[in-house]
């Protein structure tokens, strides 16, 4: 029902293409935030929002996932980090590579972020 009405409303929002002017149109109606009914159906039983230690673990999981996606072998050189788009690691490479190995592991990256403080890694 809601969808039908929005389309009708949208029909009114078409501007003319007068000389020297562009033409604009709204193809739909504003619903934000909204998700399609099929998504509503499966989203009803959502896991609990993470907070505290669970949120910290989630931050670490996300950082690890992105690191490992760029480093299938588990280690990254500065050049490999840059090529994979992990410019943050390339930029802070010397500080992250405390072992002076010329390549860094996720544990090095994690330790750098944790020791710098202010974030969500414990």
């Amino acid at each position, binding site marked *: 029902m809601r969808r039908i009405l929005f389309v009708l409303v949208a029909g009114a929002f078409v501007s003319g293409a007068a000389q020297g002017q562009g033409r604009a149109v709204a193809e739909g109606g504003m619903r934000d*935030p909204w998700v399609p009914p099929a*998504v509503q159906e499966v989203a009803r039983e959502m896991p609990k929002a993470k907070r505290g230690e669970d949120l910290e673990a989630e931050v670490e999981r996300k950082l690890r996932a992105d690191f490992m996606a760029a480093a299938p072998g588990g280690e990254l050189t500065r050049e490999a980090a840059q090529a994979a*788009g992990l410019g943050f690691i390339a930029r802070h490479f010397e500080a992250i590579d405390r072992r002076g190995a010329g390549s860094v592991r996720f544990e090095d990256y994690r330790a750098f972020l944790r020791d710098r403080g202010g974030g*969500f*890694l414990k």
Partner: protein
Amino acid sequence: MVYSTAATASLPTAAEITTVTRQSMALGGATLNYTVTAGHLTALGLATQAPRASFFYVAYTLDGAAPASRPVTFFYNGGPGSASVWLHLGSFGPRRLDARAPLHNGPNPFPLVENAESLLDVSDLVFVDAVGSGYSQAIAPNVNRTFWSVDSDAEVFRDFVMRYVAVNQRDSSPRFLFGESYGTTRTAVLARLLEQAGLGLRGIVLLSSVLDYSNNCAVMFPITSSCQGYVPSYAATGAWFQRVTPQPAEGGLDEFLAGARRFATERFDPAVRRFLATPPEAPDPVVVAEAAALTGLAVTSWQAQFNLPPDAYRVQLIPGTLLGRYDTRVTQGGGSASNDPSSSAIGSSFVAAIGAYLGGTLRYTTPSTYVTLSNAIEVWDFSHDGRVVPDTVPDLATALTLNPRLQVLVASGHYDVATPFFTTEQDLARLGTRSNVQVRNYAGGHMMYLDDAARVRQKADLADFYRRSLQ
């Protein structure tokens, strides 16, 4: 080149063509000379450097400013599927549509006027349209729909920001993001991606946020989660219409809303959880009476639908009157909650104005039609981090881990029952207390900047935010 917002549309190739105009405006007692650049930039894949999407943007840059100290802010609306037209022509650009929310008692369609609250004195401003909106389109082999997911949309926005910074030599400029509604969902993911890519941000502005979709009861139907996050917005609305008991004293709205927040979490939410449990417990009559007094909505309404969603409040507060969704202060005589008088009051003015502004004032000529809002939302992939709807608080926490000095300003409107301010406060509370995360709520709706008084306050808060962020 004719741009299309169709899901399967794809440009065979793209060129970075712009139209440049010189303009000036009076702002804060000074004359600002600025350059407007309207056109396209090609977002390149982060690792591959392959062309991915041709982004349409309008950039306002102050003439003669030193790039190293001059901030640049990227603005975008939400939807998903919306172009940046609302922020571009309604908020802090050099010109704005004189909407005069909530009464809208000026000329209609709204005239475009010089904006005394423009942020151009503080930052360069770049308004950018999502892929498949405005004149932005995917480049083959991608199609628009390639970028219609939480993650791919944020990734291609990252690629646009990096391209803008590289092409315009803004490597040393302090950078800010300014997103509205779904644009805040995008910002949380985008901030993480930019920090990770090594393009650090100085600050982000989250306006009318939806950080965790699952914490907004009205996004789901049937409603299975507590609507307690809406209760303070109902209270603000009831007070606006002078239907609450007792009515807050003059200047006493903050204290009144503090009480509404306490009621929502301490009294209402526990009762609603028992009501939603199996077996359900009948609504506590004392809580029902308290809810009615606090929000102005009749006891019978609360009895009939104890976990009351915003559509019911909008229809039932004043019999025969429908309240707006984006701004409850805007009303019409009855009608279904599927209508939003606060949207219909502004929509046609913005659609008409953006065409005339781009083609006339900015002399950007194209045979294409500028699409202010596509139907991308119908097929958008909302999944993120293994959840079917996004919770981007962990993305924000990750961005803050990569950049603990990132400044965050969160703005909401008291009369917005799309992204209620208390829900946003509760999402942010998951980050703990942080001095670099600040919340500002305004006497306005979802687009609180359309309210003249709110926009003046918001400009002052933004100027203060930028000042502190740049220290």
